């Protein structure tokens, strides 16, 4: 399946609008933070074009731009010479570009065939011609080689089969380009193999596949062309036969140091253990054990979906723990509610502050004092002055900038919102803080302030766990790093061995089929 076989594929002429998809100088910013800077590439029909890179390197952003989910701030796209500017995925669809996202878009209550032909049903004056649909479905199924009953309820299918439904839907719409974002992340070994076959057959039929994947072995096995992204920049585009895992990882590495980190206090091995996790099992967490000392910052690295947040929530007793123990300062955390964990001295800052952290419409004051209203109240009656004083003090401590303590949180910048989460945590005076993605969507200045807060908290004797997709951040802050994959802690790195190369190697190298046993 070299790039030159478009002409041999008879379907392609009829189905695709044909020609190369040329992306030129595309940039995208989110709230001032560049996600993609000046990226240009060409996607040729009949090839599998893989996009690889760390978390946040911009691969998904690029995929979304190609499929019209988001529009770029700068740059142009052309398909076979025709200028493209999509305002919605629907417009991209009209040009034969289809996305198969991680979150599947099927209607669970409809049958397989109905899902495949959703919106383009064969019909006579509004009545769906079921027999005709089924016939068309069988034909399509035969050409792609799927065995799916057209009459099954789509909701009752496995994830892999639901993905097949999406792929069939894509193929039934004269598609020329299929964008797949982490298609095998949720699949078992067999299903992955089946999907790989499909991807290859798509390319053989003259369609292009844009494959976004974390699994380097998968990428190397499937792709014809591999583009490496780092920090939103295109590092290089190479032929797959000229690449190997080492060269790809090497391409993802070597980020420029954008932010300085506060100096690390020397970790002291003699310090008391504040948190002890033993054989913890929970949804997405498989037999995890580690300890955390006083004044220590422990980093948890891993790819998105590796089970880092799940581990945090299991420790925080926010998910159903099926086995193992969590001891906080020697006493077992047996409760089943976050409120009890907080009272015992364990605080958790969740990854998405808007959905899981803040009452967006309420004031800064109410948001900060929420966890420890008991400190500023007597017999349930809130002492207004005491609350205002306490909140002001905390806001100064973590440098939250707000017009007033009564300003609604929705008016604050992302950085200030995140600092506010820290103010709330500081008010709880915990012995352990778990911060999940503490600087996501935060500007550079606030990042530094948050690093300082984390370091100060640790210096005051707290044990701090930092979960982050930003590798530089984990390495810059943490005394020790745990790397997770498929719900397990794969390796622990400290001292000399704690470097980007080692973390990426541990996080990336296993094949995608490993997920079956977990």
């Amino acid at each position, binding site marked *: 399946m070299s790039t030159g076989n478009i002409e041999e594929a008879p379907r392609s002429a009829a189905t695709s609008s044909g020609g190369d998809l040329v992306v030129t100088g595309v940039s995208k910013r989110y709230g001032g933070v560049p996600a993609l800077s000046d990226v240009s590439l060409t996607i040729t029909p009949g090839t599998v074009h893989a996009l690889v890179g760390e978390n946040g390197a911009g691969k998904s952003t690029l995929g979304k731009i190609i499929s019209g989910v988001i529009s770029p701030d700068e740059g142009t796209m052309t398909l076979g010479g025709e200028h493209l500017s999509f305002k919605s995925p629907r417009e991209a669809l009209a040009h034969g570009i289809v996305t198969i996202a991680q979150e599947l878009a099927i209607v669970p209550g409809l049958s397989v065939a109905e899902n495949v032909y959703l919106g383009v049903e064969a019909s006579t004056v509004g009545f769906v011609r079921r027999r005709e649909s089924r016939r068309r479905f069988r034909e399509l199924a035969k050409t792609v080689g799927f065995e799916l009953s057209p009459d099954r309820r789509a909701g009752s299918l496995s994830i892999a089969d639901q993905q097949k439904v999406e792929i069939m839907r894509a193929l039934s719409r004269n598609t020329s380009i299929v964008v797949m974002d982490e298609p095998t992340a949720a699949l078992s070994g067999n299903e992955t193999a089946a999907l790989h076959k499909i991807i290859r057959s798509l390319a053989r039929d003259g369609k292009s596949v844009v494959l976004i994947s974390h699994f380097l072995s998968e990428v190397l096995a499937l792709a014809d062309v591999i583009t490496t992204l780092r920090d939103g920049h295109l590092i290089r585009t190479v032929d797959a036969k000229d690449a190997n895992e080492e060269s790809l990882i090497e391409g993802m590495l070597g980020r420029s140091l954008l932010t300085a980190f506060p100096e690390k206090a020397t970790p002291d091995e003699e310090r008391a253990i504040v948190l002890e996790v033993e054989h913890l099992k929970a949804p997405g967490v498989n037999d995890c054990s580690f300890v955390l000392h006083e004044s220590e910052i422990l980093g948890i690295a891993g790819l998105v979906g590796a089970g880092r947040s799940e581990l945090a929530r299991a420790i925080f007793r926010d998910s159903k723990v099926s086995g193992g123990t969590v001891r906080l300062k020697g006493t077992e955390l047996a409760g089943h509610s976050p409120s009890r*964990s907080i009272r015992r001295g364990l605080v958790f800052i969740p990854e998405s502050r808007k959905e899981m*952290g803040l009452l967006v419409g309420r004031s800064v004051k109410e948001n900060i004092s929420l966890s420890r209203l008991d400190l500023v109240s007597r017999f349930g*009656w809130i002492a207004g002055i005491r609350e205002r004083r306490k909140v002001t003090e905390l806001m100064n401590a973590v440098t939250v900038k707000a017009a007033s303590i009564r300003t*609604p949180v929705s*008016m604050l910048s992302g950085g200030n919102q995140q600092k506010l989460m820290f103010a709330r945590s500081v008010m709880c005076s915990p012995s352990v803080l778990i911060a999940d993605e503490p600087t996501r969507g935060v500007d550079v200045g606030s990042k530094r302030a948050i690093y300082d*807060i984390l370091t100060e908290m640790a210096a005051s004797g707290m044990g701090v766990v930092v979960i982050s997709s930003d590798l530089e951040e984990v390495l810059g802050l943490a005394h020790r790093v745990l790397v997770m994959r498929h719900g397990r802690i794969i390796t622990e790195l400290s001292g000399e061995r704690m470097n980007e190369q080692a973390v990426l190697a541990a996080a990336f190298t296993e094949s995608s089929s490993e997920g079956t046993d977990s």
Partner: protein
Amino acid sequence: MNVQVETPEALDVDSEGGFRSGVIRLLGSWRLAGIAIPFLILFIVLSVWSGPFLSTTNLINILDQQCAFLAIAAAGTLVLVAGGLDLSVGAIYGLTAVVSGELAEHHSPFIAIGVALLVGLGVGLVNGMIVAFLKINPLIATLAMSFVIGGVALRVSNNNLIVLSQNSGFYKFANVQLWSIPSAVWIVLVFVVILALLLARTTFGRYVIASGGNAEAARLAGVRVNQIRIITYALSGLAAGLGGVIDTSRLLSAQATGGGPTLTFTVLAGIVVGGTSIAGGEGSVPRTTIGVLFIALIGNGFNLLNINTLYQQIVLGLILLAAVSIDVWARKRRR
């Protein structure tokens, strides 16, 4: 814990913010004005147009009639703010009315009042637990419960109208005059003030607001969301019980179908007209009180001005639509 970080830029807490935040700050009082100004206008218009309106008798009469509505709406505000909905208040009102009526015939008024209130509280508690633990949509859960409760109420009263004699001590509960205002009004006033303070000034109130505003965030911040919600339903049941007892004592008669959907939806209308968001997370008991009285004034005005009552319904519906539209608009502005 002492976190000191670079650039400890002095934070002037009470300084004026930018224009937008100033606007947002006004929103709270703006919502209050949104119901208070129409209320005052209506009040003045009625005073001018209709002579009997401004008489003390008429005004006290309105308050007396609205007692049950005011109590139930105050508690209903808490339910709504916590992210719930209680459609069973009409049924609970009917049940507690007949329970207190039956008991008052043969027992001491204390037993009649006490048992009826406990029944209201108990049913509310069940409502809350169904919603919290079975995770059933509150609309469906309390609707289903209202049928169950309504059936029980019919069973208790054998579908009869219960009529009481004026001599009983039970009559005094709602009808003792203090400064020529009946005790029913005083009782409800105290109840409403307590709920208003509970929502606005206590930790419980904060938890109610947090539970309705963002349940997930509240839970992760250590708020026991389920517990808070159950308490709001229990309070709602208690309020419906109080309303049932007061009206039975006031009117000396009780009927299982006395409250029903009409009461439920009038109360809900009052809460929403008062500017409490049906989406939860914000609301105020004083505004609800004005909302309920606003609707009562419309009814009273239409009667005094001899306008066909069917227009009253149309007007009420339009006002409700306007209130909800304003809420939606205000929420969008905040994004």
